């Protein structure tokens, strides 16, 4: 299908760079005029995504399981560069995919964890209790997704965890508690029905 025929590009040379203008091969082969009754590709794609979306809940459960596995590594092997990398990768996946899969608040919580792992001056000192809170909160948000007031509780939880992450990055003791105390003092992440 790909048109591999070579067409020489136009090259304009300057003293310190060249500007290369390529023949627009893709436009030539893929842009066509469309009949009025042609299906709208965007609508078709949205429809296909809608059909796929029935699986999004179970996909998020898979993502949570991967995150818990990564947390388990941190708990059992300690906070090393390798275990933090695994934790970051799992959290980053949720940060990136959570909203696409319909769990934006889980994505926000994962974002707080990623932020701390990425920007903390000493990531080995990120309190394990904060990691626990984030992982448990994401699991709870996914589990209680369809419950009453789930969105409101999830938003409050995400905001609280973001505040803690910000405080930890700012040096921690922005209020009257230490980082670990503050991280550990978070309310239970299981949203009440």
């Amino acid at each position, binding site marked *: *299908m*790909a048109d*591999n025929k070579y067409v020489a*590009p136009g090259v304009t040379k*300057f003293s*310190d*760079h*060249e*500007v*290369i*203008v*390529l023949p*627009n091969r*893709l*436009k030539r*082969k*893929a*842009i*066509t*005029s*469309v009949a009025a009754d*042609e299906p709208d*590709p*965007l609508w*078709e*794609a*949205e*429809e*296909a*995504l809608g059909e*796929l979306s029935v699986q999004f809940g179970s*996909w998020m459960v*898979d*993502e949570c399981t991967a995150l818990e596995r990564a947390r388990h590594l941190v708990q059992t092997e300690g906070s090393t560069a390798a275990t933090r990398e695994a934790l970051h*990768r799992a959290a*980053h*996946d949720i*940060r*990136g*995919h*959570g*909203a*696409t*899969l319909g769990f*934006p608040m889980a*994505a926000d919580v994962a*974002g707080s964890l*990623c932020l701390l792992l990425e920007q903390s001056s000493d990531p080995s000192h990120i309190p394990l209790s904060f990691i626990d809170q984030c992982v448990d909160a994401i699991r709870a948000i996914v589990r209680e997704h369809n419950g009453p007031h789930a969105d409101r509780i999830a938003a409050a939880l995400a905001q609280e965890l973001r505040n803690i992450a910000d405080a930890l990055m700012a040096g921690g003791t922005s209020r009257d508690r230490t980082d670990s105390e503050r991280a550990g003092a978070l309310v239970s992440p299981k949203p009440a029905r």
Partner: protein
Amino acid sequence: MVHLDFSRLRFLIIEDNTHMRRILRTLLYGFGSREVYEAEDGAAGLEAFVQYIPDIVITDWAMPIFDGLELTQMIRQPGANANPYVPIIMLTGHSEKHRVIAARDAGGTEFLAKPISAIGLYQRILNVVVNPRPFIKSKSYFGPDRRRNAMLNYTGPERRKGGSDMIGQQPLLEKVKA
């Protein structure tokens, strides 16, 4: 009315997350694509790029082995592969400005921050097909022109010289003359 016939385009998706690959594939098939190849890390992606010679590459940024930025830099090697000019759409969970600049400086053609939407992906693909930018080859950069618009008021580093030269504010008279 302009219509993009996706069935005439060959795509390569490089993404380590199986769910996200599925979503991207579903969207592309929904648009009408018929040829969609996949790879789950940067190394496999480079191999697939050489093997399938895709028209458009869609790659995640954060991946094992080597990431989307490194992959882009490997593809953007003049003479090293069949199509160093291939449009590369970079997907990422990061949307901070410095990330966008890093993707652009690596030679990425378009940047798409997650969450992925059908319209966001469609627009990026349409843009690389309908409005391709010229390529710039300098001693420090090879990739799509990073200047999307002619900015007469631009002040900042002179990137094409690859050194520390700066472009300063042009006097009004000079601008008028230009």
